[in-house]
């Protein structure tokens, strides 16, 4: 079977490109290892300082409500960060004093949500805080296993019992105008978020937990569902292991599961992510791209890859696959004419496209547009 486009990598960038192409009538396939950066998505699309209609529509059609309210958001460690285009989970405020009094609610035995850090951070902004831990019999089964009290497992239970939590909070609530909750709600049903907000007589601020990110996993589920409804082929649990490149163009790619059945297409998109997602590989001497052996912009000497200060900007995070102005990936200095690199595999080689989620979306749309333009021609 031959596709118009084969996309390697099923994260935010790959799915955005896939949805755009399917909508325009192109047949596509996505190869996904199953894990991607959406699993630790903060809920804010980094570096999206605007809200293009095209992006909000694309998400809305997938059942994901993005809202654009430039301001600050509360971070899990009790700090504040500027944010704009975000998932509906994320509350954005004009200033860091987000209320007069806040009730911070978590669950007994849950260590991945940092109530005391949040309380300290909020009190610094003049918000009085009270912490309450809910003791829910429905979570007992999770508590019994030493490693089950984690965000996604709790979220699965919350999908069933969120109404109980709302009732408990109504009882606990005194004169607080704000309720802070961990992001463990609405894993499979986003309407839960607004129903919780309606059910509690105070503003509800869903705040991040340790990964995996529940809003991120939900986003992945919904985008994938949308992609498949549009007729896209999502090959889950597979991985590209090599490629056939002739005369400056990719002919087909080899995957782990399909073996000798090569995937052929007119166009290929590489959205395999940076280091953690294995889009970029490193050894003591160099950083490389494993599927095509593309050019990677990097400093020559390993000692230049790092800043010894952990919290400073790290040079290695800026490295990425080299591309031309239309995002064609370069190999040996020459562009491969039907291969586009998008998302975090670009590192910060294309600063005009932003970073994080913003980079994923902008580069995905740009590559899709380029493919559509060429397909029409």
């Amino acid at each position, binding site marked *: 079977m031959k596709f118009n486009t084969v996309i390697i990598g099923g994260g935010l960038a790959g799915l955005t490109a896939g949805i755009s192409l399917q909508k325009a009538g192109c047949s596509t396939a996505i190869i996904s290892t199953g894990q991607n950066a959406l699993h*630790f*998505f*903060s809920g804010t699309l*980094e570096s999206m300082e605007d809200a293009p209609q095209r992006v909000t529509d694309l998400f809305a059609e997938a059942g994901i409500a993005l809202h654009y309210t430039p301001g600050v958001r509360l*971070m*899990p*460690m*009790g*700090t*504040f*960060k500027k944010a704009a285009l975000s998932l509906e989970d994320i509350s954005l405020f004009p200033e860091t004093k987000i209320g007069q009094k806040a009730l911070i609610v978590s669950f*007994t*035995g849950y*260590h*991945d949500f*940092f*109530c*005391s*850090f949040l*309380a*300290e*951070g909020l009190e610094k902004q003049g918000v009085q805080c009270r912490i309450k831990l809910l003791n829910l019999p429905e979570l007992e089964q999770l*508590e*019994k296993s*030493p*490693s089950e*009290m984690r965000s996604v497992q709790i979220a699965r239970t919350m999908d069933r019992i969120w109404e109980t939590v709302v009732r408990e909070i109504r009882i606990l609530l005194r004169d607080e105008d704000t309720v802070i909750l961990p992001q463990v709600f609405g894993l499979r049903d986003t309407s839960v978020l607004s129903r919780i907000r309606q059910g509690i007589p105070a503003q509800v601020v869903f705040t*991040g937990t*340790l*990964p995996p*990110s529940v809003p991120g996993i939900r986003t992945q589920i919904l985008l994938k569902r949308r992609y498949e409804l549009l007729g896209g082929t999502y090959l889950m649990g597979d991985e590209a292991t090599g490629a056939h490149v002739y005369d400056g163009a990719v002919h087909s790619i080899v995957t782990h599961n399909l073996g000798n059945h090569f995937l052929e297409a007119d166009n290929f998109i590489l959205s395999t992510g*940076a*280091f*953690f997602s*294995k889009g970029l*590989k*490193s*050894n*003591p001497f160099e950083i490389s791209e494993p599927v095509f052996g593309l050019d990677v912009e990097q400093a020559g000497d*390993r*000692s230049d*890859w*790092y800043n*010894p*200060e*952990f*919290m400073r900007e*790290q040079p*290695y*995070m800026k490295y990425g696959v080299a591309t031309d102005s239309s995002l064609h990936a370069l190999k040996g200095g020459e562009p491969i004419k039907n291969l586009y690199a998008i998302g975090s595999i670009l590192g910060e080689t294309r600063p005009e496209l932003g970073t*994080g989620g913003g980079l994923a979306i902008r580069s995905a749309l740009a590559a899709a547009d380029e493919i559509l333009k060429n397909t029409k021609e």
Partner: protein
Amino acid sequence: MSNQEYDVIIIGGGITGAGTMRDCAMRGLKTLLIERSDIATGATGRNHGLLHSGARYAVNDPESAEECIKENMILRRIASHCVDETDGLFITLPEDDLAYQQTFVEACRKAGISAEVIDPELAKRLEPSVNPDITGAVRVPDGSVDPFRLCAANMLDGKLHGGQVRLHTTVTGFIKESDTIRGVHTRNLVTGEERDFYAPVTVNAGGIWGHDIAEMAGVHVGMYPAKGALLVFAHRVNNMVINRCRKPSNADILVPGDTVCIIGTTSTRIPFEECDNVSVTPDEVNLLITEGAKMTPSLSSTRILRAYAGVRPLVSADDDPSGRNISRGIVCLDHEERDGLKGFITITGGKLMTYRLMAEIATDAICRKLAVDKQCQTAETPLPGSEESSYEAVARKIWEKPSMAQKAAAARMGTRASRIRTRDTLDEALICECEEVSVGEVINAIERLDASTLTDLRRRTRIGMGTCQGEFCACRAAGLLAKSHGCIEKEREDLKEFLQERWKGNFPIGWGDTLREAEYTQWVYKHVLGL
């Protein structure tokens, strides 16, 4: 003498100070130990964790070899929960001279070390990770020892015998009356509190920093800081200690310990100013990997977890300003006899293996000064936690059906694991999944083992030592620490320091999976958690 508070003050919370504290307290002395940082922060926690059989020293330093094998046998008895009786191999590679094996075996036997020449084929069966091209192998009673655990257990026993420990407290000066040290001025580095303590005897057990402590007291101890770099691998590749059967050299010992294995070491003289902040260079990393892979080829494809370095407190013999006559043996200086300074003793040199003997020698000297006539009992009395020999027996005794995590805790704490709170299932929740450390064990370390920072917790529980290098467990544990001391701002800084300390050991080997993990951690803490 009316205002004396203690019989003896020990400066230094490494294994020598901790061992001396235990010995003094067991002999009935009122003992205070002062440590400017945490337990085992110097050379004690920055070595292989090798339970030397003494074989390595047999040819060149028979005296050290004899001390090692004696202490080796003692530690198996008194510190069973800190010791892993793995045995060791001394292998000959094709590039090594097989004739050395004969010299080596004879020297071992002379020192009382059992050294059995075995067929290389048998060696490969016993230790499948070993280079298949070996031409010779000798089996010796090497093992591994967890220095953090050993240090904590000595201090704990010192406390059980009435001794006191002040961590994060620095000595700012000596209280001196003409030719006598009467006590110390101190400052608590966390609270800023300044206090004086008095004792007729003060012991300098400061390792390489003992040089500066002696200077502060007005005497000179000629120390030579020798840096040794090591690499920790993410898997326990070998089950026996693997050594090269040749003259001791760089990177020729691979020691299995807990879930990891450690290759080392190098030896480089460094200036005193660098002792507080030693780092591992790319050349050292390359040397350790290349040499290590000769003994155990799979090391070249095994993930490296971190790189670290320690500074050996070597001492040049007196009247040898050139430092040529450097001994790795035990040095106990009574400064009254040597320099005319009363009430001051320096105990240094030696090695992790011989800490108990060093402590015995120092305590004998202290007792002579105080005219106390008590015998040392540290060689016969098990350390707290080591009353049982097998951790599985310990776990079964405490918990009817021990979980994996409880077995891991029993292996770390021995019989002291019975002190872990297991009031309900919540205490059994895991804080660190890599090393299986529970809420209860973390709380125990905070309450009973004087842990006040995340790095303190790491030394006592192995939190953050596993493959994720503290990605998740750090902030989970930070939550528990914050609850215990109540200062969130401090805990946020502590978390940053912990991550910085982990990064320091990660970036020198920052490629492959280590770089993947680092990217994830850096992204999560900055962008997702907002630290």
